[in-house]
């Protein structure tokens, strides 16, 4: 299969279809299976071929593992023409970012979230708030009812939930609904002052929500950068989402790597840098 055909199948997965594994020959001793030879493997079928039934079967077996681990890898595969090295990369539907409350913070957060590759849903109970004019980058806009806040919204292991409603009554309703469902989301964050957060948590404890489930909530939300404007707060929340995705400490790289500090100490031991 050529690159364009592979791109088409990979794009279908990235747009929300069933996941696929992209297979690319990256090293080969033979022009029978040249570098750049492609396959796309799905759960029960495959497109393209390494030109040998057994080698293709091995690729499909490896692809199942790659779908499980969700990480790219390389593998040597024997073919009648000699051993080739393949690169395997899984492609999934994008993670979701569900923003509850379509107010000031939600607007910049929706834009940044879309830039970061999330499929963004914005939800509000007020008409005229979760609208396409205000949230052009959203893939889903929901007019919600806080007695059943997530009706019509798919929530799963790839969902990042941000609670930024206009009052802790609504945060409470939404958080309570999530806590009672027993699904583990990728991230749950809730905006609020320490006081407002404590009030919400106290009420949930009274409802019998377990300590472990409450401990998983990121609240107050965002990384500590003294964010103040809605845009700054959105950046702070987005930075926390990136950290959940990639890891890291959230500390300035300068203070982590301390290249400057060590350089100066080494070159000016008396400290008169």
């Amino acid at each position, binding site marked *: 299969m050529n*690159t*364009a055909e592979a*791109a088409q199948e990979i794009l279908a997965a990235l*747009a929300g279809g069933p996941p696929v594994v992209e297979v690319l020959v990256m090293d080969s001793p033979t022009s029978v299976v040249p*570098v*750049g030879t492609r396959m796309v493997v799905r759960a029960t079928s495959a497109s393209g071929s390494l030109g040998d039934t057994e080698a293709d079967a091995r690729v499909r077996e490896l692809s199942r593992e790659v779908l499980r681990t969700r990480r*790219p890898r390389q593998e040597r595969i024997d073919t009648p023409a000699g051993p080739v090295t393949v690169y395997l*990369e899984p492609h999934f539907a*994008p993670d979701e970012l569900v923003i509850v409350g379509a107010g000031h913070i939600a607007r910049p957060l929706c834009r940044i979230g879309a830039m970061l*590759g999330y499929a963004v849903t914005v939800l509000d109970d007020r008409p005229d708030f979760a609208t396409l004019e205000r949230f052009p980058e959203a893939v889903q806009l929901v007019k919600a009812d806080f007695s059943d806040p997530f009706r019509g919204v798919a929530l799963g292991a790839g969902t990042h939930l941000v609670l930024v409603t206009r009052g802790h009554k609504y945060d409470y309703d939404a958080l309570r609904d999530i806590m009672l469902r027993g699904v583990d989301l990728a991230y749950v964050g809730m905006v609020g002052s320490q006081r407002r957060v404590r009030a919400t948590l106290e009420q949930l404890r009274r409802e019998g929500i377990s300590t472990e489930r409450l401990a998983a909530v990121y609240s107050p939300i965002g990384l500590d950068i003294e964010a103040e404007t809605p845009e700054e707060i959105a950046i702070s929340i987005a930075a926390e989402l990136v950290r959940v995705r990639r890891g890291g400490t959230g500390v300035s790289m300068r203070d982590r790597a301390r290249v400057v500090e060590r350089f100066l100490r080494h070159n000016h031991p008396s400290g008169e840098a």
Partner: protein
Amino acid sequence: MSETRLVFEAALESARQGRKAVLATIVNAKGSTPRGVGSRMLIDLETGLVGTVGGGCGEAQVIETAREVFETGIAQVARVDLTEDYLSWSPAVCGGIFDVLIERV
């Protein structure tokens, strides 16, 4: 929208329009490299770049190789070595090495 998706959409668009285009994929990376395995860039020789495999650090070499791959039609893996002497003022001093598979779209 994810970077991967933007790059594949651009690749498909270039193919549909019949433009000269080449896809670069990082398939291997060691040490300090600006981008990791799975990063991609579409080099459309008529309209420009979509995505990145590392900016100043090695991208020029990839673009050079892309021209060659387009001319020959033969995919190849380019090794980008960023371990040059850091006093050289070369852009290639990040400290790592990566391999990019470059193929004609």
